[in-house]
């Protein structure tokens, strides 16, 4: 059994839900992200947030998978501050949905001043509504600097508890500062960028598995919604026992996510015809 705590199921087929269920997936959480194009109006986000909170839980439930969402304006669409404010005004309504765990995935993309301002405004929303926070850290050359700017902004916010914030997409050069500051850290298993399963196991061996999870971040790009169970196999090949696999793929995400009373990974009866074939 496993939880994939960061996967963009709106971009995946129903076959992926079926395969994930067969591999033992019992729950997913899906952060709001960039669609691959910029939405032309705030109304485009209303439609997307409804997809996250209404359609996806039903698609997942058919395969016995619990689906939860995180709501925000992603940093790739945060460069227009006035537009960002209009979208952020929509968020409080969606935070009331019974499967929404919090604000995410907020963060930085190119480390710009406007992105940082929009990130700080999201942090205020999370503090006001007392939600969990899921943070995206930038790509490639921007990750090191962006992670530091993000940690500073959360500390400056003042009231958010590090244990209720997960900093995602850490790699060898960012994991230490995240864990040392008391935050949770996520490792994303991608074929070319971010972490391979082998490197994720290296990071676990070097830094321990406390406050650490792994995810597929499966989306419309080059990614694999079975990356979490496959990493479990890599851990076994590297000499780690079933308990260690269970901790990183199931118990750790459950511990973090259960800080929201809306999270559940209780067994759900699959109802899709092809799930019981």
């Amino acid at each position, binding site marked *: 059994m496993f939880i994939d705590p960061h996967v963009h199921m709106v971009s995946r087929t129903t076959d992926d839900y079926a395969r994930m269920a067969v591999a033992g997936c019992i729950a997913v959480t899906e952060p709001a992200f960039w669609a691959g194009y910029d939405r032309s109006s705030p109304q485009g986000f209303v439609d997307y947030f409804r997809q996250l909170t209404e359609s996806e839980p039903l698609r997942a439930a058919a395969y016995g998978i619990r689906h939860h969402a995180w709501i925000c304006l992603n940093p*790739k669409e945060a*460069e227009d501050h006035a537009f960002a404010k209009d979208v952020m005004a929509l968020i409080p309504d969606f935070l009331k949905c019974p499967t929404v765990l919090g604000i995410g995935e907020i963060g930085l*993309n*190119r*480390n*710009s*001043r*406007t*992105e*940082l301002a929009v990130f700080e405004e999201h942090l205020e929303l999370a503090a006001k509504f007392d939600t969990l926070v899921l943070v995206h850290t*930038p*790509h*490639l*050359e*921007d*990750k*090191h*600097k962006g992670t*530091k*700017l993000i940690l500073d902004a959360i500390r400056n916010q003042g009231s958010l508890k590090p244990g209720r914030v997960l900093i995602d997409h850490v*790699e*060898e*050069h960012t994991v230490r500062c995240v864990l040392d500051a008391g935050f949770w850290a996520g490792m994303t298993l991608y074929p070319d960028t971010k972490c391979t399963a*082998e*490197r994720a196991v*290296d990071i*676990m*061996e*070097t*830094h*321990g*598995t*406390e406050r650490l999870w792994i995810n597929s971040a499966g989306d419309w790009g080059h990614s694999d919604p079975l990356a979490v169970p496959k990493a479990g196999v890599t851990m076994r*090949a*590297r*000499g*780690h026992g079933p308990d*260690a696999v269970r*901790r990183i793929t199931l118990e750790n995400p459950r511990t973090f996510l259960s800080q929201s009373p809306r999270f559940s990974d209780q067994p759900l009866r699959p109802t899709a015809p092809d799930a019981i074939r």
Partner: protein
Amino acid sequence: MNAPDKPPLSSEQLIQLGFIQARSRLVDVAAFLDRVQRADSGSGGSRSALEDERVAAILAAMRLALDGQPERARRILESFSDLSTDPVAHADGKAARGIPNKP
């Protein structure tokens, strides 16, 4: 598993497990450099493609891998990182390119 100082497998077992993949990835990097250089030869340009700042960053990172010191992955990632500290005035496009812009 809380930060054991040694991985569960012996170095011999880890070599057994990872050698063929590491060998293959290294040949891929070498073939990439050959490919770039091959396309360059005869183009008559005065500047070698190996001086391209992205290619140069890879060659510099390979030197880090050879220095015998630990934490090669972290140090190589840092060598590919923007180490400045202030936010930029405006996002320079949506996509990162893998190495920092020259200051």
